[in-house]
Structures are given as C-alpha cells and as structure tokens.
C-alpha cells in the first residue's frame, strides 16, 4: 500500500480536475488560497483556464460566464468572499447556472480570524440568496471527502443546473493528511443534459416529466438567452404570474424532491443504543473518536455524520433517530443546523453543544456533554 500526503485544499483541487472542471476563478483569501494555487498548477497545462478576479464578485462572475459557455467551473473563498458572492449566487440559482463554490469556513463574524476554523456559514450558504431558494451544500469530514464530495458537487451542479457548495473548514482545508488515493471509490462524471433534438430551443423549458431544462452553450449554433431577470421558459422577461410560479416552484422542487438521491452520510449504529450524536464537518471526527471509545468500553452510542446538509436530508435524519431517546447535536458555531433538526424532530429530547472560539471541539468536551445528559 502507498499513501500520499495532501492538505484538504489540494484534495479539493484534484477532485475538481478529476470531475472535469476546466475553469477556475478566485481571489486570494486565507484559508482558501491554496485551492487557487493548486488549480493554477493543475489546469493551465491541461488547457484549462485559471483567472484571478479583481475581487470576489468578478471571480464568480467570470465563472458564470464560462459556465454558460459550457465549461465546468469552480470558485473558492471564505466567509468574507461568500458575502460578496451573494448576488451572483442568487443569479446562479434563479437562472440555473451550474457552478461549484467552495467555502473554506473561517471564524467569523466578518473578517474574523483568517487562520481559525469554524462552521459558521452553514445557514448563510442556505439562506444567503435573494428569493430564499434552496441550494445544495455538502460538508466534507476529511481529505477523502474533499476529493469525493467535490466530484459529487460537480455532478450535482451539472445534473440540477444549480450552485453546489462545499462547506469546508480551515481545519480540513489546511490540515495535511495521509490518503490512499487509489483506494477511493469515486463517482463517474455526469454531464449537463441537452435539450431534445429537432425541436425549437427554449432555454428554460423542461421536457415532460423532467425538472431541469436542457442546456446549450452560449456561443454554439443555436441562440441561447441567459438573464438574471424573472423570465419565462423562452428566457425573456415575463409578467405572466402562472409561468413565473411554475418556474420558481420548479427551482425548489427539482432539488427538494431529489434529496434522497444525494443524501451523503455515515451512520454508525450501536446495538442497543438510545443515544445518537449528530455531527458534520471536522467535528464529526471528534465525535467518531468518542463513538469508538464508548463502544469499545461497552457503552453503546450511535453516530450520524451528515455530509449533505442542504436540502435537509429529512429521511436520513428521521431514520437514524428511530428508537433514540436522546440526540446530541454538535456544531462549530453557536447553534444553526440544530434548529433544522429540532424542527424535524419535535418529539425528541435534543441536546446541543456548540463552540465558536477558533478551536476544534475535542472528544473530551463531547464526553463531558454526554455525561451531563
């Protein structure tokens, strides 16, 4: 067996290239900069394009242009950059432009601490668009996920024509880790689907039974219209309330109805346990250490590690809490996702531990919390 040493950001870059990404634009920001550095090493020799924008707004704007020209695109930033991306995230959602956005979270609010980890953007990623439409957010736990989930992110962006976020964390992004790359189980590449042949093209028309419009690139033979305005299926501004409602409902439905297809998670059950820990991101690693220790010592607790955070994987969560009396939710923030779980599970006694001080939640803290309950 042969392992390699890599940091999470390099793994994301390599995953992106393996998924077919050939266009990257970014703006330097700790702790996401090394994704840009890695893309700059990887893409140009492959004929791909890497640009440094004059600001974050430009970086994601470049990506939206290139994506509409048919390329698989990615950008990467941290909290302050996500804030600037916001108007373009809304654009990508409303106008169905595939893009993968990496948020290497650092301690906020605002400028916060550039080199301290956090999971403080989890709700911001979901709700940081005007219109409040759903998005897909995947959260890696380790370097393997950085490769695997990034590849899934591209596939989902292409398949559903939407922005897909990777909610990384400084503690994964800039931590070097050993990895057996050859042993990874990686997904095949999925491409955008084309419209049905032989019919006039309407850029936002879906075929019967489908929920995602077929894609043709700007610059191809057939004329393509893209617009950030409220549009009908022909890509022109519309005031027809019926058509507006149909399109906006479809934007919500195409993701929320499909969540079970891409609810990634690890469920580590323990025989006879009535306590479940729910964690995501780097915190799941401390939870796993506790899970292993407790079960080795004959104290059964179960662990659910969520890797798809949005849309809410309701079935995954409900299934995991069956027979549980107590659920402990852990987050590297002061309580965000826990409220979603609360909403899903009104009858369960929910316990929460959140920490926002730039440090990892330790196994000791989790054990302390379990002992209190």
């Amino acid at each position, binding site marked *: *067996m*042969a*392992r*390699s*040493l*890599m940091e999470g950001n*390099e793994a994301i870059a390599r995953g992106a290239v393996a998924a077919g990404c050939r*266009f990257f*634009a970014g703006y330097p920001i*700790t702790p996401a900069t090394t994704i840009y550095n890695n893309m700059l090493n990887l893409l*140009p*020799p492959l004929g791909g*394009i890497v*640009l440094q*924008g*004059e*600001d974050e*707004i*430009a970086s*994601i*704007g*470049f990506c*939206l*242009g*290139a*994506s*509409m*020209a*048919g*390329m698989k*695109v990615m950008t990467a930033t941290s909290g302050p950059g996500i804030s600037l991306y916001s*108007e*373009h995230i809304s654009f990508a959602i409303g106008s169905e432009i595939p893009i993968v956005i990496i948020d290497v979270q650092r301690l906020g609010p605002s400028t916060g601490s*550039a*080199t301290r980890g956090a999971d403080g953007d989890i709700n911001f990623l979901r709700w940081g668009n005007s219109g409040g439409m759903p998005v897909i957010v995947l959260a890696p736990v380790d370097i393997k996920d950085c490769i695997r989930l990034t590849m899934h992110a591209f596939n989902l962006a292409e398949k559903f024509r939407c922005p897909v976020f990777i909610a990384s964390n400084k503690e994964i992004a*800039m*931590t*070097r*880790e*050993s*990895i057996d*790359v050859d042993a990874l189980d990686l997904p095949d590449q999925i491409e955008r689907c084309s419209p049905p042949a032989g019919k006039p093209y309407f850029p936002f028309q879906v075929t019967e039974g489908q929920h995602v419009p077929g894609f043709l690139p*700007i*610059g*191809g033979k*057939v*004329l*393509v219209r*893209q*617009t950030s305005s409220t549009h009908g299926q022909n890509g*022109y501004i519309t005031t027809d309330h019926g058509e507006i409602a149909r399109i906006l409902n479809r934007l919500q439905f195409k993701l929320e109805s499909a969540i079970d297809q891409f609810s990634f998670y690890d469920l580590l059950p323990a025989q006879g346990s009535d306590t479940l820990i729910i964690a995501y991101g*780097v915190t799941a*690693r*401390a939870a*796993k*250490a506790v899970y*292993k220790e407790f079960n080795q010592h004959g104290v059964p607790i179960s662990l659910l590690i969520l890797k798809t955070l949005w849309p809410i994987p309701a079935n995954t969560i409900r299934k995991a809490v069956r027979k549980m009396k107590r659920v402990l939710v852990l987050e590297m923030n002061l309580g965000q996702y826990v409220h979603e779980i609360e909403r899903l599970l009104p009858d369960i006694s929910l316990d929460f531990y959140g920490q926002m001080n730039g440090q*990892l939640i*330790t*196994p000791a803290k989790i054990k302390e919390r379990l002992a209190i309950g």
Partner: protein
Amino acid sequence: MDSLLNDQRPPVFCPGCSHERITHTLDKALQKMGRGGNQVVIVSDIGCSGLFDTFFHTHAFHGLHGRALTYATGLKMAQPDLTVVVTMGDGGQGIGGAHLLAACRRNLNLTLLILNNFNFGMTGGQFSATTPTAAQVGSGFLNQLERPLNICQVARSAGAPYVACYSAFQQDLADKIQRAIEFEGFSVIDIWGVCPGRYSKKNRLTPKLIDEALSEVPCQEGIVSENVRHEYSQHYQKLAKDQKPASPPLHIETTCDPPQPDRQEVLLLGSAGQRIITAGEIMCLAGLSAGLHTTQKNEYNITVLRGPSISEMILSPEEIDFTGIDDPSVIVALSQEGVERRKELFAHLDTGTTVIQVDGVQLPSTRARVRAMDLKSWGIRKNNWALAALGVLAKMNLVINLDMLKSALKVRFTGKNLEESLLLVDQIKISL
C-alpha cells in the same frame, strides 16, 4: 448581411431616447461585419441599457448591475471566437468601476459600449458618475458635490488600448463601432446621448450641445498606441502552453517499521523562519514510509517571518479521527514564543511525554521527561533546528527512526538540499 434585430421584440425605449438610435447603429455595424447572430453575444447590464440584449437576435447574457464585464470575460475566455459586445450605462460604469479598470488592464478582446446619458434613467434620474455638477437631477443637491468622471481618461490610464468618445447622433457611428469591435483587444466607447424620459426634461441637451461638449473633452480617438499590446486570451494560451504538467500526488511506499506500535502525537513549538512546517511535513512523510496514517495541523501568524510557528503531527497505525493533540509523546521546544503559545499544556504532562528542550528555551514546570539539546554548540544554524530535532528523535527511536527519516528526506529534498539534510542528521550524536 441581414439585420440582427429581433423582429419579435422591437425596442421599447421612451420616444427620442438615444438608446434606440444606438440599437440600430450597433445592428448596422454587426451587419457590415457580416456577423451571424450565433457568432455574437450581447452582454447587457442593468437599467435601460440592460434591455439591449432582448432587441437582438443573437446570444444574450443579461446579469447584475455593474457586472457585465465579468460575465463577458468568462464567456470570451471560454469561447475565444465569439464576438462579445457589452452594453452598459453610466450607472453600470460607476458601480462596476473596478471591473472597468481590470478589463482595461487585462486587454481581453471585448467591446464595451457605455451608453452615457448622464443619469440613472430607469430609477428616476438620480446622478451617476458622469452627471455634470451643474445638472438638475433626481438626487437633490448631491451631484453638485461630486466631480463627473472622464471615462476615456480613466480607461486610457488604466491601460485600454482602444478608447473613444462619440455622440449617439453622429452619422458615422456605425463605422466607429465596427472599428472598435474589429480591434483585437479591449475597446471602450463612451457614447454620449440623451435621456428624454428623465435627464433632458430639466437639462437642455441637444445633438449640437453634445457635439460642443465633446469638442471640449480631450479624447484622442481610437487606438491608444502606448497601450497596444498582447490580447489577453491569446497571451494566456501562449503562456499556459509552457506550463509544466502538475505532478500527480506522490505515493510513498511502505519500506520500514515504526519504532512504536501505537498512536504517537508530536508537537513542534518554534518560530517563523525555523522551518517548523517543513519539519512537520517530513515527519509525516517518515510516518508514511512506515505505513502509518498521519496528520499535520499548523498554526502560525499571518506575518511571514515573525511570530510563533507550531506544527502538530499524529502518526498512527489506525485511521486518525480527531486531529487535535491532547496526549503528546513528544514536544520539541524550539523557541520561547512557541512554548508560550502552548504553555497551558505543560502542567498536564506526565513521564509518558518527552520534551526536547533546545538550549536557552525556558519550560513551564512539568512532570514530563526533559532532554536538553545544545544545538547551538553543535554548530547547527537556527533554521535547521527543527530538522535537527527530527534527527535527535530518529536516533532515540522515538516516533520515527533513521530509516523512516532518511526515506522522508529523500522524498522531500533533492540535490544539494538532500545532501545537506542527510549530513545534518548524521552529524547528530546523542548519548542514550
């Protein structure tokens, strides 16, 4: 060539609006160039000029306010053969100022038409970046306080190789637009027009007055010779071709056994400039050569050459879950500020931890086993102390051994650096 105007959607501007005239003029220019609709994309901004794309039977991209140049950049880089025309008002030019400057500096082959009518028409005639201070606009007295921008001057100083300023009414405007589109590089045309819906209700502005005003603005027409240079996309392709393919991740074969069979946690506490992070990486590579799982977490200040630098490594035969360190086997104390950063740790340590104490570094009181190392007297330079400490550990068979270390050095270094590092390790003599 046929008109590229969209016969289903005739222009809907206010009567007398210059935008309508420019719509037809742009169509004429594209016709003269013989462009088909699918060879052109109109990228439009927000405001009345944002309606432009809908009147053309071409590819169309209509996005957010001030950002049109950003989409145009992505489109052109991805489709270098596409003719990309960006239309934007004086409002979009103002809010997207950073993008205009960057586009001038970049020199990608785009054409920017700024439909300059000196106000925000659509929202009620507020002042823009080009509104004269004497004008009466929908922003009360505020425009009296801000000096209008000379777009051509700005574009020129930012490096645009093709800059011109015209009246929307001039007869040869189609030829002028054609020349700008045909220019191989970034071209900016500032087109002055009237907005009868808002601006010219209170501010008299006629074609003649525009001509007079234009004659007072120093703007040389067309190519700016000192800014002529490589077109960005072609230049990019040329430079990208010379980039060496990135190497795949290095696979490190298992060639030796680790000295300890269980999980080992190591802390390097030092300062920037001591190559702490590199030493940590080498320790991880050493772990890989013994078939171990490893992690390395670093902490350093944003300033590059000052402040503490700390590296935390775990080497373990099991998969590593938690990446933090709570029970270190080894702490290497390489600098005082490094030790200060983790001083609370020392009180909890017991004899299971070995602290390698470089001479001169004070330790908080601790029950850990302390081994002093006088690296200075061995003549080892400060930037090699972290590496030397790895040599010490290898010779003690603690966490790593010599085989592991040497194989890691061979992975990490080549040539002279490798020779020097191997020599450094050999130089270390410890009494067991």
